[in-house]
């Protein structure tokens, strides 16, 4: 039976979602506005046989969750801008070594220390491109407490299924708001565990994909002994400088995500059937946009919303399909440069009328801000 409906905060829902997905290890460093995820993990994990660790910094936090994942525990961390910046190198290691883990980045207003308690959405490009070298990952962005819970479960599922780190790109608004929510009963949401090797131990190669494009992942301490390295590595996990191998490896890291693109990319559409104007959103600004299109429709303007639930890989086909139907596209986001707006322009072409709505002063985008761009 689902839990009784209760008042739950976004950050709490993220932690609860992680436990629902089977997370048993959290390592993190306190930082506003993500600290409640750590606090909830510190309270719950020792009760359920897991481990909570407060590390000396975010670099160590990211390292620890990779180690814990390889030792068999579903692992996660939570942070915000400054901490997320510190995590980049070890996050790149997790991508290269194909280690499942979840990184919650509660976006706050930057740059640098910025406005530590205020919301932002300016980490979109950092999430995708913040590390050196060729690599890719998955990022999901919640717009409500319910989505905080559900997308955290999804994030673990994607991480486990595709052997890739997944970033939950929340923002201070959803992380700190409280809403009525009823946590689903066990079994109600799908929970995926990583594929384990089944061949004879001496035949196991941790970086040789099966036909589905994903290699099974053993656990340190089992009968399957294996090597993991941040260096370029061959199918058996040992370092390998061969150019043909490097080309194969870099390709494989990308292709496994591209191959499952349709399973990974999630969007939500609101009132798009007859629209003349499309608002493309992600995260908390979705809520202002939905109120704005309701107001627009009451004034006779047919507007709709496309919410990018998956931010990376970018829902380009979905943007293209709906973008072709309208006279104008509005992209509200809490950053200066229009990080998603530029992507939307790239997808739809330079001749499409794209109105950007940007706020980067720590205050939130209101329905009126978006309505002004719709009209």
């Amino acid at each position, binding site marked *: 039976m689902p839990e009784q409906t209760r008042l739950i905060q976004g950050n709490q829902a993220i932690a609860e979602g992680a436990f629902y997905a089977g997370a048993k290890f959290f390592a993190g460093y306190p930082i506003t506005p993500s600290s409640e995820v750590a606090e909830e993990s510190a309270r719950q994990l020792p009760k359920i046989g897991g481990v909570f660790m407060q590390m000396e910094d975010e670099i160590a936090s990211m390292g620890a969750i990779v180690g814990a994942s390889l030792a068999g525990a579903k692992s996660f961390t939570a942070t915000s801008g400054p901490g997320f910046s510190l995590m980049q190198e070890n996050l790149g290691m997790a991508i290269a070594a194909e280690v499942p883990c979840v990184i919650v980045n509660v976006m706050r207003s930057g740059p640098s220390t910025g406005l530590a308690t205020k919301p932002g959405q300016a980490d979109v490009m950092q999430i995708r491109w913040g590390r050196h070298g060729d690599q890719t990952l998955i990022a999901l962005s919640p717009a409500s407490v319910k989505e905080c819970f559900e997308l955290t479960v999804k994030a673990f599922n994607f991480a486990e299924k595709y052997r890739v780190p997944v970033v939950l790109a929340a923002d201070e608004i959803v992380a700190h*708001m409280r809403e009525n929510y009823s946590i689903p009963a066990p079994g109600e949401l799908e929970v995926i565990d990583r594929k384990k090797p089944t061949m004879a131990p001496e035949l196991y190669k941790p970086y040789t994909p099966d036909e589905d494009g994903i290699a099974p992942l053993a656990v340190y301490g089992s009968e399957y002994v294996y090597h993991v390295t941040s260096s370029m590595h061959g199918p058996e996990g040992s370092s390998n400088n061969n150019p043909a191998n490097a080309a194969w490896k870099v390709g494989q890291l990308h292709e496994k995500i591209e191959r499952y693109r349709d399973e990974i990319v999630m969007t939500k559409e609101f009132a798009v059937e007859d629209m003349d104007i499309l608002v493309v959103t992600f995260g908390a600004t979705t809520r*202002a946009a939905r109120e704005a299109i309701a107001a627009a429709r009451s004034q006779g303007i047919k507007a709709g919303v496309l919410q990018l639930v998956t931010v990376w890989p970018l829902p380009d086909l979905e943007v293209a399909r709906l973008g072709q139907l309208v006279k104008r596209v509005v992209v509200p986001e809490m950053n200066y440069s229009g990080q998603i707006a530029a992507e939307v322009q790239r997808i739809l072409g330079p001749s499409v009328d794209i109105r950007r709505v940007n706020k980067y002063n720590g205050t939130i985008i209101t329905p009126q801000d978006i309505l002004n761009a719709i009209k």
Partner: protein
Amino acid sequence: MKNRHEIVLAGSGGQGLIVCGMMLAEAAILEGKNVVQSQSYGIASRGGLSKAELIVDQEEIMFQQVQKPNIMLILTEEAMKAHAPNAADTDVLVFYDTTLLEAREGPNYIGFPFTLMGRELGHPGTANMVALGVMCQMTGVVTQESLEAVIRQRFHGPAAEMNLKALYHGVKLAQ
């Protein structure tokens, strides 16, 4: 009965406004309503402007921020200046603490010495419960019964009794 309420609770950090907002939200959930509770805060744990917001609605709540508040609870002069300086001619009901603020003119400014009453009831921390009692009685945002249930969920033993006493005191004041 009004379907939607937008509530602002404002004062200074450490006055328990966020807990107040959460209790109102929990009471509304018991009545099957949707809620969004949010806050703005600075980097200090105590002091500074603090504001809790709550939207209660029978329907789905889209935008999460209060835009047109119809109920306010104000606990400092600074918060009054920031949030409700000219409420006299509006339809916003502004509840405020006359122990901490100067008296205001106007039918929709509703002042009671909440803090003083809390002290007289035996614990200054119960001032907010007195305020909640007054607010629910005068606005119907949630029922007295729902608030009682929330108090019993959150507190036990003498603490629960103390808070319930404060709530009833507020309800009686409003009557």
